């Protein structure tokens, strides 16, 4: 039995900002449980002496010169905006505090 519970799925939905209906929570709990059972085996071979690979082709120090370019016009920036005041994006009231 893995640790996937409906409460956990609901909490993950909050973290991921996806409003999950009860029916979705139930379905996802079962599905994730089966998937997690299957993928948990990665920890069997992941011993301490094995380094993690976060990037498949090892490279480092790839930088960009400090030169201005790539800027969008305000019209381009706003061209897909669901709502704006003409030069800023508009969103409805924010509940939470700044991070």
């Amino acid at each position, binding site marked *: 039995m893995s640790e996937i519970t409906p409460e956990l799925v609901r909490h993950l939905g909050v973290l991921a900002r996806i409003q999950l209906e009860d029916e979705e929570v139930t379905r996802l709990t079962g599905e994730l449980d089966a998937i997690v059972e299957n993928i948990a085996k*990665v920890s069997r071979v992941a011993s301490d002496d094995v380094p993690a690979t976060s990037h498949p082709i090892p490279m480092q120090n790839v930088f960009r010169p400090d030169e201005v370019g790539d800027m969008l016009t305000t019209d381009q920036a706003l061209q897909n905006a669901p709502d704006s005041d003409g030069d800023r994006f508009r969103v409805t009231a924010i509940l939470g505090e700044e991070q």
Partner: protein
Amino acid sequence: MTDIIRMTAAELAAKLTEGEISSVEATQAHLDRISAVDGAVNAYLHVNDAAVDAARAIDERRAAGEPLPELAGVPLAIKDVLVTTDMPSTSGSKILEGFMSPYDATVVARARAAGLVPLGKTNMDEFAMGSSTEHSAYGPTRNPWDLDRIPGGSGGGSAAAVAAFEAPFALGSDTGGSIRQPAHVTGTVGIKPTYGAVSRYGSIALASSLDQVGPVSRTVLDSALLQDVIAGHDVHDATSIQRDWPSMAAAAREGATGAGLKGLRIGIVKELPDSGFQHGVADSFHQSLAKLEAQGAEIVEISAPHFEYAVAAYYLILPAEASSNLAKFDSVRFGMRVEVPGGTVEDVMSATRDAGFGPEVKRRIILGTYALSAGYYDAYYGSAQKVRTLIQRDFAAAFAEVDVIATPTAPTTAFKLGEKIDDPLAMYLNDLTTIPANLAGIPGISVPSGLSEDDGLPVGVQFLAPAHEDARLYRVGAALEHLLVDEWGGPLLDRAPALNGGAR
């Protein structure tokens, strides 16, 4: 003259250069084909209204005596994962319906600069999550070999478009097999280049450390020509490799002569026994190996003990990175917005993401959020990154023994639409053979190896090479293609059923 739509990109390029056909003719022929058959296939999400204008511009430049790149005037299909300024870019998702990018993906910009004519945007599983293109928010694409079957995924649209002669070649993206597996089930060629060979800038990210843009075509040479156009370092993508690549087209042309097969050591993976594959798939695979062996190649069994962990590692790394990459779809700057009367912006975001994402996308975002959560990171994401190291070591050991590794591209031929849609675990196993290359960053090619004896559907053989050795794959792939097409007496796709009706 052969039907324009049956010509390869290389043939079209030659005829365009010689002035035998115009780009407008070539483009219009493909647009007509799309009109005729895409209603049935649904390979395209959007057809480019300006395609003929772009073709005419190329014709005019040619008429004016301007020296043009080799492929100038050849039409191209573009997977909808790539952003374009002149056509919507949706990545197969409702949440991006109608989205117009203010910039072109680097590969699109390079294709345009090479004079290629964009025909349209091809269908895909939503945000490239899937192996069947059934997860597209805009309806599934159908396999031109059997319209009741899947065209593979996530790049089913690009593969089907090419297989149905709706484009000579196409751009795709491959995170765990999304170029190679559709090639396998549609009788086409697909290559996942070395990670970083091609810029990802403007490719709507699924899993950043796995995604790679690559070509889809009917011949190995056409893919090689396209990779030559799109590859190379891009300042916008730090992970794109800074090096001078050899000409892939030259490698494909050289491979087609058969030179290079003598003494070529081909590894087959002990841990991928025939029992894991549909009979007809394993059979076709062994016939291909026999052909290569007959030309002097040597078949060597190699061991990759950690392949059995690859799917598990992949289904941790991909959802984890995807959960972060897909956070940007939040209703603030672009895309869908679901209004919540009296609701806060948090409510609006959550409702929008609930309505805008399909079930597979939600499943993976929730899974990825879990894998990265405090307390689980080490066991899941951290361990998966270690498996990645182990798989790289498996490949390093194998490539010390062999020049390329060969596997069947996927376990089965095209399955029926709807067959696996409710069984995510079964769906995930489709990528068993293709995933290791993405985890390790190495290149892989899928080349048609014939039709399966048990169902008459296409089968592909996959070759893998060490990182940066993409040219080796084009050489070997072209050699096998040459041998098989000779034996068949023509391209495999000549045997595909005609597509009657189904006008778009």
